[in-house]
């Protein structure tokens, strides 16, 4: 993995240092991080001033500084998978503690993969790790060589400076950091799992919360487990099954028909409805050669 700061950003910083001896907090606007686009598609113009991250003008799951259009579903899935792999691998390399949650945890439970209909992936991070990333890794670019991607791809790690404010009243900044694919504009939202200090003041111990208002018991998350997701080592919260039952109901652990897909127990894959008829004349699934996962 190569590791460099975007030169535009370095220039911006040196200009600030030379032109103005006091370093001001500023956001990474289009001009300072732009790659191939000539026009900014971020929704910055319409967002309140205190909001740090801006979703694109065309879709909330894209960063308008790097993309101007949504991807077709099958392509998006490939980008999501590569983004997850590079994120987990980078966090593991730098020693930041992160784990998968929500829809990604449910995908992991079924077959260790992102569910084909998911439009994003969900991760959480510990308080000390977000502080660590903010201190040493903010605005770093991580270059990955990926199979089938000539020239590789750059991922940007951007920390929201408002991460220091842990209050849920800061509702414009519930996302503490992003792992951004600078080619597709897709990103992973990173939320910090914090001690619930309000509850602690009331004498309640072991409660945790995120700025997005999700609440957990510390004992349900820690100690973390080691497993794999999208073929990459990942951490899993301690009480994964209980967390999934609480969030999605126990049906989510048995329902094999979901979002126009069915779960094939032989292949351990979610297969789109109608796939057999289109590809096979309706012959049983196990007689068909294996579908490529990625």
């Amino acid at each position, binding site marked *: 993995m190569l590791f460099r700061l975007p030169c535009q950003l370095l220039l911006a910083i040196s200009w600030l240092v030379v032109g103005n001896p006091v370093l001001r907090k500023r956001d990474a606007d289009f001009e300072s991080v732009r790659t191939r686009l000539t026009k900014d598609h971020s929704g910055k113009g319409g967002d309140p001033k205190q909001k740090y991250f801006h979703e694109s003008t065309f879709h909330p799951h894209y960063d308008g500084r790097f993309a101007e259009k949504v991807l077709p579903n099958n392509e998006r899935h490939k980008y999501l998978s590569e983004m997850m792999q590079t994120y987990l691998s980078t966090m593991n390399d730098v020693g930041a503690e992160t784990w998968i949650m929500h829809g990604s945890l449910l995908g992991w439970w079924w077959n260790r993969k992102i569910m084909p209909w998911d439009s994003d992936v969900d991760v959480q991070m510990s308080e000390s790790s977000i502080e660590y990333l903010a201190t040493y890794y903010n605005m770093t670019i991580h270059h990955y060589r990926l199979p089938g991607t000539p020239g590789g791809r750059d991922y940007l790690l951007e920390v929201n400076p408002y991460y220091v404010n842990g209050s849920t009243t800061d509702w414009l900044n519930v996302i503490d950091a992003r792992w951004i694919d600078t080619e597709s504009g897709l990103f992973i939202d990173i939320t910090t799992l914090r001690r619930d200090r309000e509850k602690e003041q009331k004498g309640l111990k072991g409660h945790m919360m995120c700025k997005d208002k999700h609440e957990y018991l510390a004992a349900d998350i820690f100690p973390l487990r080691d497993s794999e997701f999208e073929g990459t080592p990942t951490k899993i919260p301690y009480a994964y099954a*209980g967390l999934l039952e609480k969030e999605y109901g126990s049906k989510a652990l048995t329902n094999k028909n979901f979002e126009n897909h069915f779960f094939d127990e032989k292949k351990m894959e979610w297969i789109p409805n109608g796939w057999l008829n289109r590809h096979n004349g309706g012959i049983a699934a196990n007689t068909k050669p294996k579908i490529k996962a990625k």
Partner: protein
Amino acid sequence: MSKNPNSFGANTRPQFTDMIHLQELETELIPGTEADRRLIFIGDVHGCSEELTKLLGKVKFEHGKDHVIFAGDLIAKGPDSPATVDIAMKIGASCVRGNHEDRIILAHNSLHAKVHPLPGPQEDPHVQEDFLDEESFSHGDYKDRALAKLLSEKQIKWLKSCPVILKVGPIGNYNGGGDVVVAHAGLAPGVTLDRQDPFLVMNMRTIDLQTRVPSEDRKGEPWEKIWNHHQSHLHPPNQRTTVIYGHDSKRGLNIQTYSRGLDSSCLKGGQLTALIIDSRGKQKIVSVDCKKYSG
């Protein structure tokens, strides 16, 4: 597999580093008709080493003749976890992984994990970030870490060797000649041992009647009720599996046709219980009284 198209257990069973899912007990340890051997199953000891010694004395444990199998939660909460593991290792016992062993093993691994390895260029090298075991640490699992530190590498290694599920198999004609399986909290009926969810095997208390998904809370039906119902409908009877488990001290000693709950709440001043099966397939229950270590 169950005929229900949406049955629990269809997923790829979660797999983790440092966790053995399923093991079979060596056949030479199983009481046959000739040798005068015994299997001794013991419920949640929770570090009550004194009571364990007393119980082994009361059942007249004999090296080479008897084999002890712990149903998990050998450690944590009670007075002396390291001494308890030492006894278990010394008598060559088998064990299954309880929710407390699971926590302590994971906490031990996290103590040795590489997190924030490099101080930054501007960081004062004299500042040490060593707050992992303090109560103020944002993880809240400092108790697990503290116990993990009390145990030696050898003891941790032994605990890691305990599978989530131990298949003993048939013990002569015991309980109709079906399989005997040890699991800390319980098993989901109708799901093969290989596809049981490890977290639920170590934590379940109830099963949701509609979805048949086990859960650690007490809202559904007691898991053993569904288990016994399911087993009694399997034919022939030697297809029926008997589960020996612990975990549920609230329900206490709980002997049913195809389940044997052995957690008689030693930690809270109840008893420590052993279930003995001899070479004639006869079952006997022996317990000793415990001091009250916790409310």
